[in-house]
Every structure is written in structure tokens, then in C-alpha cells.
């Protein structure tokens, strides 16, 4: 059975990856899964300087989901290269580094340094505020996004460039196209959706940061719609993310047109989720007598009509 998929220059053993921020720096999962079996590992978002993150409480549960406002806590580029990369380099799987910054030059510096350190792929987290543009996030402004990606592409030419789209836009096809046209090798989506929960006894928000990002099964149908819209629009591979808990969920994303998928919140509920999903996909293909994963990618019957007549 052929499970391999290509993302840019990367050839993945299989389409199952971990999602950034939910898999630590992989070592945290070595008790639970054979890391070498994964298609790729996306590590927690790295910024140039270490970030200490937001005050607690940082997470809370919601119906079929959770909010987080970790605040992009990370060890910073230097410490990542020195302390985390050696462990990752020993793994026989592709490592994708999720990066974040407050300016274009941050992203350029991060991707260039990572390329020079032998990293094969970066994923741009563009949901962060651009401090120079009044804190508007790169991910919701098509012109800013185009510029960001082009600049990164110019400086880091060999690295596989994945742009992680924000779900917080009206028009996913537009942003998918911008990413493609600006030189992304692939796009991944969705990131968490900004959300709020309030404690009705204390009248305080449940997170110290007030809002947080919603993830988990609750967002799956939204993510799936966006992945489908994106996949119908661009030719570069689309990586599906959002509420994937089991093989059935992953298969939905593949059918919608995703070339690969990432498991986020699912890792918390079941730390063996990635491998369970991989095995579940294999079983499914066997049962359906399909011997290449590509036989299901984009297999959904139905054309994008961009028809908004819900309700």
C-alpha cells in the first residue's frame, strides 16, 4: 500500500502529522508513539527571542472543544537549535518548524536560519499580530500576507514553505491563492478560531488573556469547509487541520482535498492519536481495496459553488 505524499520537496511516509503547539518538541510523546512512524512532526511555534507566554489560566474546556491562550510561549530560536534540534535530528521523520514573528524581518530571519541549520520545512504561523501595522495579524490582510511570503521565499529558497492560514477571514480561496502566488509550497489550515468563555460565578473570563483560540471537534466542520474551498482553488498541496480525533475525521479531510493532515487537540485526549489515525487510514484503504492514499485525496463528489445560502 502506498501512503506516501509529497509536500513541496518533501516526501512524507504518510499523510499524518502532528499540529504545532500540541506535540511539544516531540520528545513529550516518545512515551506514547513511535515518532519515526509519523509522516512529519510540526513542532511548537518558534520566535527569534524566547517568549514567556500568557498568565494562567491558559486553557479551558468548551462543548466538544477547548480554548487556549498559551501566548506563543517558546524557548526561542537559539535554544531551539541548541537544545531541541539534536533530539529531533535523531528521528527518522520529517521535522517542520512552525515559526512566528511580529514583522516580516522576523520571519525572514527565522526561515533563513532554519534553512541554514538543515531544516527541510517551515510552517508560517501568520495569526500573530504585525506590530508595525498596528497589530493586525498578517493572516487576515491579503496584501501583507503576500509581502510576507514573498520575502521569506526570496531569502530561503530551498526550504519547503508552508503557510498556515487563519480561519478568521471571509474568503479562504483568496488567501489560499495569495499564498500560492507568493511562493508557498503548500498551505495548512486551520489555526484556532478566536473565542471566549466566561465564568458566570466570578464574572471573569475563563482565560486570563480573556480570549483564546478554539480547537477540537467543535471546529471540524468549519475547518473541513475551508480546506475544501482551499483545495478547490489552489494547485499546491493543502494540509488539513481542525478537530481531527480519529481516522474517520482524517479521511474526511483527505476526501475534501487535503494531501495531508495534522492532529492537534486530539493528541491531548489520546496521546496515541496520530498512530491510531495512521493505522485507521490503512485499515480503511484495505477495506475499500484502494492501494494508494492518493486514491482518496479530493475524492468527495461535489463541486465548489461558493453558494452561501445556508439556513
Amino acid at each position, binding site marked *: 500500500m502506498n501512503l506516501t505524499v509529497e509536500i513541496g520537496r518533501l516526501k512524507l511516509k504518510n499523510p499524518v502529522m502532528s499540529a504545532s*503547539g*500540541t*506535540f*511539544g518538541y516531540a520528545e*513529550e*510523546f516518545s*512515551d*506514547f508513539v513511535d515518532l519515526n512512524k509519523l509522516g512529519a512532526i510540526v513542532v*511548537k511555534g518558534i520566535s527569534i527571542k524566547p517568549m*514567556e*507566554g500568557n*498568565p*494562567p*489560566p*491558559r*486553557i*479551558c*474546556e468548551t*462543548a*466538544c*472543544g*477547548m480554548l*487556549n491562550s*498559551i501566548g506563543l*510561549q517558546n524557548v526561542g530560536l537559539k535554544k531551539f537549535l541548541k537544545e531541541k534540534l539534536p533530539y529531533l535530528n535523531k528521528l527518522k521523520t520529517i521535522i517542520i518548524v512552525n515559526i512566528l514573528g511580529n514583522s516580516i524581518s522576523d520571519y525572514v530571519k527565522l526561515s533563513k536560519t532554519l534553512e541554514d541549520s538543515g531544516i527541510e520545512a517551515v510552517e508560517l504561523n501568520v495569526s500573530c499580530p504585525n506590530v508595525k501595522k498596528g497589530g493586525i495579524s498578517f493572516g487576515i490582510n491579503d496584501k501583507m500576507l503576500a509581502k510576507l511570503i514573498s520575502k521569506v521565499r526570496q531569502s530561503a529558497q530551498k526550504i519547503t514553505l508552508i503557510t498556515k492560514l487563519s480561519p478568521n477571514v471571509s474568503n479562504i480561496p483568496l488567501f489560499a491563492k495569495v499564498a500560492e502566488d507568493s511562493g508557498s509550497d503548500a498551505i495548512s489550515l486551520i489555526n484556532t478560531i478566536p473565542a471566549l468563555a466566561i465564568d458566570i460565578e466570578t464574572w471573569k473570563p475563563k482565560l486570563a488573556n480573556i480570549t483564546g483560540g478554539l480547537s*477540537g*471537534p467543535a471546529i471540524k466542520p468549519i475547518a473541513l469547509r475551508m480546506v475544501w474551498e482551499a483545495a478547490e482553488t489552489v494547485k499546491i498541496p493543502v494540509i488539513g487541520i481542525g478537530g481531527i*480525533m480519529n481516522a474517520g475525521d482524517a479521511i474526511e479531510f483527505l476526501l475534501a482535498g487535503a494531501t495531508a493532515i495534522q492532529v492537534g*487537540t486530539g*493528541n*491531548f*485526549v*489520546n*496521546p*496515541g492519536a496520530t498512530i491510531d489515525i495512521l493505522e485507521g487510514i490503512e485499515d480503511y484503504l484495505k477495506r475499500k481495496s484502494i492501494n494508494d492514499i492518493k486514491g482518496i485525496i479530493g475524492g468527495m463528489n461535489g463541486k465548489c459553488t461558493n453558494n452561501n445560502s445556508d439556513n
Partner: protein
Amino acid sequence: MSKNFRAKVINNFALNPRTFLLEIEPIEETIAPKPGQFYMIQPDSSYDPLLKRPFSYIRKSNGKIQFLCAIKGKGTRLMMNFHSNKIISMLGPFGNGYPIFKSNHISLLIAGGTGIASILSLSNEVQNKYLIYGARTRDELLLLDKIEELGDRFIVCTNDCSYGKKGMVDELLKDFISSHKDNINSIIIYACGPLPMLKAISKISAENNIKGFASLEENMACGFGACLGCAVKTKQGYQRVCKEGPVFPFKEIIW
């Protein structure tokens, strides 16, 4: 040996209307827990509630593990109804438990409310010990049978005076310190309970220059260091309750 395992419910009964004692038996091979460590327990197989819940174990014997659980919200309400033989999904043991010192010292164990669970896991493992245990009312003093063997080294209090001494554990701690002025340097405090209690104890310890450790709680998504959700502020920056904790030295915590 796995930290991701299924377990069978052996016993589950109410100790009072807001608390139950849950006994489970892993049906896969697991790792032995250390005092102060905790497990993540899945309340339901649906996605609502989604996350597993953290609980300190009381003790592990004959392969069975006991938990004391207060009913707080959705998850614990479902757990309260776990029937015998139900198969549940669990993770653990996790965290750094209480540090146990070889030196010759007095271990002063302090528990408030369901904090007694974590404290009891330690109690079996230390020798020269005292235990101070407080709750609001008699009704909330739990597992006394497991403790009373300590005899006069066991000091109990209730806020409403319905059992033992009247007052809060921090007052009892002050009394204890006064009556142990001579060997105050050999006292090590281990505390688990509500945050205000821990804060008060930590303050008294600092004033008296007593070394001590507190087991903290914070909302958790994973329990094993991956999500960074359970951060608490310490002198070394944010640390994870599930990984560097749940037990921290008093003097490291920024309250």
C-alpha cells in the same frame, strides 16, 4: 508498560454528597506511581466533556489505584456514576511527586479538603511524620479511617468546630511550630489543598524559615507537558504543573 492505558472500575462510592472514592484496576501493564503524582481520567467517551481530568492517587495496592474525587462540574458528575466493571481510559502517572529526603527530619504533612488524597500517597512513604488535616465541616473530613492510625501525630480541625480543633490549618501550623521550636530546622512541610491555604502556609513557613513543598492545581489539557496549558508563575518563569510540578518548593512559587 504504558502511560496510556485502560482500566476497570472496581469500586465507586459516595463518601458524602459531594465526594466519592473511586478504585480502578489497570487492564494493561502500567508504571508504578510515586507520592504526589497524578493520573488523567477520561469522564466519558463522547467529546463532551472532551479533556481528561487530573486526579492525585491516594494509594496503589494489589494493582488497584484509589482516587478521592470532589464533584465540581461536568466531568466529575459523570465520573460519580462510573459503575463497577466499566472500562475507562486513563493516562499517567505524571508529574514530579513530593521530594523524599533521606536525612533525619520531621515530615509535616498538611492537607485541606480533597488535598488529603495526595498527602496520603506521601504519608505511607515517610517515617517521622505529623499530619494536619482541615476541612470546613465534619462531613468534609474524609478517609479518617486511613489516617487515624497516626494517633496523636494526627491533628485535625474544622472551620465550624464540628470535629477536632476549631479553625484553619494555618492556625494549627502556627501552634505546631510553637510547640516544636527546638527542632524547627528539621521540619519539612508537604502541603496540598486550596490555594488560599497553601498561600497562608507558605507565608508562615517563610517567616519561620521552614522548608516546604506545595502541590498545585491548574487547568490541564494534556497532563504530560505538551500543551503548556498548566503554567504557573515561578521565580524561574512559567513552569508546568504537570511536568515540573505539581509539587513546587514554597519559595519558588510566585503566589
